């Protein structure tokens, strides 16, 4: 049985090879080549492009360990990633649940569109819109003061919450989509079976629906956590002076300081840390699902 399966899949692979070739070629050109160039850069003293002399060094990686600033920023970025992921779960999961299990037909399509909309809008437009909402004298400030009888000052601009708000808004669609897909696949009769056995809606949610939608939650969390840890646009624009994170430092190396080797080295350290975190988390999560 198992042997048969292996043979079948091997011959299947051979016939699929011509079909897979373009995809692999594309992966090689688009990802593997630039990435290996970056690995190469990360071990250099300087860029070879500028005509200056260069040599191999481990100094770029050593820099991370010699200055505590990088570690501090990495920890801050990991915390940012964790918080944004949690907020995305808190907001995205209930939204996905309502979409998958409560709404039907037209209203489902309409709400779905609203959730996906941030996906389709330009990232910068999105962030600057938030800037207009959050700054002092901005839309939120004006609106609240128009409603409330007393004077309050809302100025969330250039603050940690502003960064969180911007990032959550950008990434929550991932959580909604992945959770929607797993929730959609859960048969409604499971919910009914749970309730017929005397479980309240909340008990059914806790014991049946959340465990069964774990794969979606995990996929969404991974899709969000990884890019948020390395994010720089939202922290820079919405965070201002408070918005210095690991990602913004990497960006600086590439666009401001032109120290590509250091930027590349910092990126690969981040990649390694993220991979380690995912490796540690995966057996725990596999048991949970």
């Amino acid at each position, binding site marked *: 049985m198992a042997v048969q399966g292996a043979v079948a899949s091997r011959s299947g692979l051979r016939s699929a090879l011509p079909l897979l070739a373009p995809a692999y070629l594309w992966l090689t050109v688009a990802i593997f080549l630039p990435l290996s160039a970056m690995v190469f850069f990360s071990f250099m003293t300087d860029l070879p492009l500028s005509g200056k002399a260069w040599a191999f060094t481990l100094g770029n990686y050593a820099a991370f360990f010699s200055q505590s600033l990088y570690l501090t920023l990495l920890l801050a970025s990991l915390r940012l990633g964790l918080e944004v992921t949690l907020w995305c779960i808190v907001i995205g999961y209930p939204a996905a649940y309502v979409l998958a299990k409560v709404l039907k037909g037209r209203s489902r399509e309409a709400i779905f569109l609203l959730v996906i909309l941030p996906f389709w809008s330009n990232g910068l437009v999105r962030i600057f819109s938030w800037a207009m909402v959050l700054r002092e004298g901005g839309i939120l400030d004006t609106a609240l003061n128009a409603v409330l009888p007393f004077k309050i000052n809302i100025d969330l601009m250039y603050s940690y919450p502003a960064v969180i708000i911007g990032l959550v808004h950008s990434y929550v669609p991932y959580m909604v989509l992945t959770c929607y897909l797993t929730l959609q696949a859960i048969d409604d009769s499971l919910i009914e079976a749970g309730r017929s056995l*005397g479980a309240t809606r909340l008990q059914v949610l806790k014991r049946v629906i959340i*465990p069964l939608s774990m794969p979606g939650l995990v996929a969404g969390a991974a899709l969000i956590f990884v890019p948020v840890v390395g994010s720089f646009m939202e922290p820079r624009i919405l965070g201002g002076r408070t918005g210095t994170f690991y990602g913004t430092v990497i960006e600086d190396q590439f666009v401001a300081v032109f120290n590509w080797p250091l930027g590349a080295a910092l990126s690969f350290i981040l990649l390694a840390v993220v991979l380690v975190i995912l490796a540690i988390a995966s057996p725990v999560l596999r048991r949970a699902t």
Partner: protein
Amino acid sequence: MAGVQVSNVSRSFGAHKALDDVSIDFADGGFYALLGPSGSGKTTLLRQIAGFDFPDSGRISIGGESVERVPVEKRRIGMVFQNYALFPNMSVADNVAFGLSVRGEAKVVIATEVQRALDLVQLGTLGARRPHQLSGGQRQRVALARAIVTKPRVLLLDEPLGALDKALRVDMQIELKRIQREIGITTIFVTHDQEEALTMSDRVGILRDGRLVQEGPPEEIYDRPKTEFAATFLGDANIFRGDSTGNGIRLPDGTAIEAGAGPTLAAGAKASCAVRPERIGIATDTGAPDTTNDNVLKGQVSKRIFAGNNSTYFVERAGQTLKVIVQNTGADRLAEGQEVVLRWSPESTVLLPAG
């Protein structure tokens, strides 16, 4: 345990009346089959009793307690779904334990009750398996164990055997009946399989387009159907249509058919008669005059299907094909094309209002 009363329940979806003024009394401890074609409202009725859906009007009571507005989790019912609806994230034992566990029972109590329920459905050793490691019949048993372990007042089953193949279905019918007798639980069983309804239940209710057509013991419905629909849906029947003569009908060609059962209908009204295929005697036409008061028709055998213990003859008569089932007694068999006389007693004939 408790009886269930459904009184004048109606439920519409938009303009469509899924249930139209349905009243049924489900006796305590009885086994009740709800039978009807697809879309006749069987599931809708079961969902009203379970509490997944609420009626627009009418009353439902379980054990004398009015429950129309009580949500499903408070009704203390057990339900078995057509697709089993086992929780794939739990072991068999945890599935069965679910109802006790949400109720907050002690762990030792849960363990013994779960084991007892699994033993009852003869799956005592499979508690550690996951649902996907079981066969269809085994999943069905787990679903049943899970539904009865909480000691519900009534057991509801929505076409529970529909997904099983024929041989397994017969096994499960016997098994289900045994378990139902053993715990004596009021059981309401939805099916579109008339044989299943006949063999398993104490009483049958036939639904059509959201209305209860007839209900009663299976023998009564089979022997004394009240409508053409009930006669043809539960079992096979030959239907003759004509004008009422008061105690029978006159066919368009003038032949009279006398009926020993059914309502008294005004003479001249449109009416029909139903006769079961196994009640009709068939013999070669000898031309001898009839001296009994039996109903007699002449026809020609168009087809014979031999099925071992019996044979089915299709007989053409005045543009109508009649069906006759004869037990295999070793007597001479009739050939296709042969002229025959059909003969049956008025007591085997049921008069029905037209329609």
